[in-house]
């Protein structure tokens, strides 16, 4: 009886929980997009001939992969004199962090294309940029899409950390419902299901692409 009472209360609060969804998804989408951009630049810096670029990329990647994302979010929001709202701070921290992981994926992707591909492209008279555009980059993209998708899945889950700076995403909402109804199990489980609705299809999609591309090689 007690449980049932709680359940109907939960059921009534489902719309409230769902209000956290747009925040979770927009954080994932925006940070993912910005992260891909910065990650690509970092990857190119890491393989460039310029020592300063290489050094910068190395330090950046070490810093962002070597410290907790939670700490990075708090530093951006509380410690840096930026005077921005929590959503912007979250976007900054999440994109900078994702960029570090994506940069390594992109670098590995570019380096995995054998030297012979560039040589063959040059040997038929292509210049460097034609070789990159028609031969190297199309092959790189096929290889990095699956690990990039996995990275976006990780990012989607990591957005839950922004609750520490008061952003009302899914987990934050679930906790609020839990406090109000004195039942944490149901809303937290519901939040978990909400994540799985997105993460499982994305993961399957990445696996499918991975299989398809490994066949094409």
């Amino acid at each position, binding site marked *: 009886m007690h449980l049932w009472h709680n359940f109907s209360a939960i059921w009534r609060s489902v719309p409230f929980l769902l209000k956290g969804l747009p925040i979770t998804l927009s954080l994932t989408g925006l940070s993912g997009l910005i992260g891909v951009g910065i990650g690509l630049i970092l990857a190119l810096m890491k393989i460039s001939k310029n020592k300063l670029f290489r050094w910068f990329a190395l330090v950046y990647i070490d810093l962002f992969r070597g410290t907790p994302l939670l700490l990075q979010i708090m530093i951006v929001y509380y410690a840096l004199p930026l005077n921005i709202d929590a959503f912007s701070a979250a976007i900054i921290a999440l994109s900078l962090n994702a960029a570090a992981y994506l940069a390594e994926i992109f670098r590995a992707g570019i380096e995995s294309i*054998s030297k*012979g*591909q560039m*040589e*063959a*492209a*040059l*040997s*038929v*008279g*292509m*210049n460097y940029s*034609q070789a990159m555009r*028609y*031969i190297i980059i*199309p*092959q790189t993209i*096929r290889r990095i899409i699956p690990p990039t998708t996995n990275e976006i899945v990780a990012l989607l889950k990591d957005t839950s950390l922004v609750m520490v700076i008061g952003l009302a995403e899914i987990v934050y909402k679930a906790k609020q419902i839990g406090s109000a109804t004195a039942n944490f199990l149901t809303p937290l489980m519901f939040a978990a299901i909400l994540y799985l609705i997105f993460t499982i299809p994305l993961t399957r999609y990445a696996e499918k692409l991975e299989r398809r591309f490994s*066949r*094409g*090689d």
Partner: protein
Amino acid sequence: MIKTVNLTKKFGDLLVFEDVNFKIEKGERVVIIGPSGAGKSTFIRCLNFIEFPTSGDVYFDGKKIDENSNLPAIRQRIGMVFQHFNLFPHLTALQNVTIAPIKVKRMSEKEANEIAMYYLSKVGLADRINHYPSQLSGGEKQRIAIARALAMKPDLMLFDEPTSALDVEMVKEVLDTIEKLAFEGMTMIVVTHEISFAKEVADRLIFMADHHIVEENTPSEFFAHPRTERAKKFLNKIVNI
């Protein structure tokens, strides 16, 4: 057509070849043989500047080429076939052959397809045009690679150990294709270990060992009467001359 003067290549401190003076005229077929590590492959890769020589000069049609030359324009006139084929795995056989004519020579797709079909038929693979490299055998891949190089209508073809990575039963189809080209008058430099092919095809044979050109002769003379000890030693190690 191509000439080198004191051409030298080092990788750091490691000497690959030194003071190579070489010349090939239009219509000539030159085979380079020699033990592994003699610098044969690196030498022909320096001719189209896929590898940059450390010192010495390369002349193409009388003009000196270096890293500041218009290398893409020069490379269009020098076809290259690699030991490991280096086909573009994301493109079909047909697209492998048409991509350079379309993107580099700005040819229409229709025109490029016609040229590609001509050369793909010539290498006997007109029925494989829509296959991806992963769906082809090694011999087929190498013949596609030959068609890819020919589609740019080069004046000179470089073959870098074209059969070394092939299963034994596929060597012949590739050598036959190269021989056919040779008899049509294509100027070519072939680095190979195939002795009978060398005898059959080459006007001139170059024996490279220990970073130098050690001997230069007609194939029949070279195999029958090697002049240097180094060549004798090498030939003694090869069976089935």
